[in-house]
């Protein structure tokens, strides 16, 4: 089953200033869509609207052909959103952080899976260290471990390359391409130049 997220005549007004207007957009399985635009052009707001966090917009959203209001639960069950802040609790260990995220979507999961996901992002050996003692890049990697731990079709990533070293960037880029090839879909904003790929599409704001 393929996925399809559509936006029709999307417009967002923040405090009497139009961030964007009349935006039509469609993302499907097998695509990496990069949202581009200068600072303040509304990239983050667009991602928040598309991920269903901001309800203050005009226009319509459709998830697999159904209006977003009705398909919201199904949409959220297939969404993985990573925002500016990694969403990692400094008082909990990476393992505990991941356990909460797994449970949040209704799966209890098991420790094996979490250890494996942490190893995949190069955090083997840090499983039980309080996340507060990890570097910013390592915390970001804990968040990125969710990409493999809780597989979701639609990834919405806001600046996912922040604070990650060059090796990690290459890894993540490969992961994005592999996800699209496997029939998933990636919506991403980044200042980092993504390697050209037939799957990559750009949408410009502002």
């Amino acid at each position: 089953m393929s996925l399809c997220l559509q936006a029709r005549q999307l417009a967002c007004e923040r405090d009497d200033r139009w961030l964007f207007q009349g935006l039509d957009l469609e993302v499907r399985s097998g695509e990496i869509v990069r949202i581009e635009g200068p600072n303040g052009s509304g990239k983050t707001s667009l991602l928040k609207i598309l991920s269903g966090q901001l309800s203050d917009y005009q226009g319509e959203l459709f998830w697999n052909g159904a209006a977003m209001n009705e398909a919201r639960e199904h949409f959220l069950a297939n969404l993985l959103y990573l925002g500016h802040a990694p969403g990692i609790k400094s008082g909990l260990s990476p393992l505990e952080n991941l356990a909460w995220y797994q449970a949040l979507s209704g799966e209890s999961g098991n420790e094996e899976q979490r250890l494996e996901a942490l190893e995949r992002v190069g955090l083997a050996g840090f499983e039980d260290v309080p996340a507060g003692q990890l570097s910013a890049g390592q915390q970001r990697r804990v968040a990125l471990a969710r990409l493999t731990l809780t597989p979701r079709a639609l990834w919405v990533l806001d600046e996912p390359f922040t604070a990650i070293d060059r090796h990690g960037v290459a890894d993540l880029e490969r992961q994005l391409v592999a996800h699209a090839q496997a029939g998933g879909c990636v919506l991403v904003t980044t200042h980092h130049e993504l390697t050209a790929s037939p799957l990559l599409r750009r949408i410009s704001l502002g």
Partner: protein
Amino acid sequence: MWAFIHKLGSPKWFYGISAKLQPWFWAAAALLIVTGSLWGLAFAPADYQQGNSFRIIYVHVPAAFLAQSIFIAMAVSGLVFMVWKIKVADMAAAVMAPLGAAMTFVALFSGAVWGVPTWGTWWMWDARLTSMLILLFLYLGVIALRGAFTSRDSASRAASVLAMVGVINIPIIKYSVDWWYTLHQPASFTLTSRPAMPTEMWLPLVIMVLGFYCFFIALTLMRTRSEILRREANKRWVQELVTGQVVKVPAEEAR
């Protein structure tokens, strides 16, 4: 019905219709308040227990009525704004809050002054005064919350939610304060509760209450109009209205 609601939601339409309504409410308010004041101050008989200090009732009760009604009106506007996203409702709610706080203050002040000849003290923890004091804090909370946000959209939503939470709580607060008051002061004299008031005493009161309501509506219309101008300053119809001529937008000029 729907078309009407959406028409009402258009600031431009509201700006036009309120201009027509406003003078009537101002006239009614002036007429009623002047009549009620003269009647209440000079013609109504003095109370047999309280004498002429009783005449404070003609400002105290209308202000107290209005203070409570404005909070309810504010919450209803907030609900309309949240459910139908009608911006005019939020603008009205925004301008109502300060007037509501002012009316609460009037009710508190007149009640306190009234207390001197009646109880011999400036402040008594009377049920009505205590509820009014709490209402004043609720108003201040809504005003402060609206002012605390940098984004106006968030401020509007937050103030709407708080007004709705407050309006659910007001009756609970009122009943619990009444209960608390009767527990601590069993057989005391309350300012305004009396078994039967002669017609020439309560009729001016009714006139004053109506006058205050008209005043509230007129002032809210007027200040909502200002709020519309403030928020829609960039819209073409506002610029046309202000300059009195058709404003060309740059895109049209280029053509």
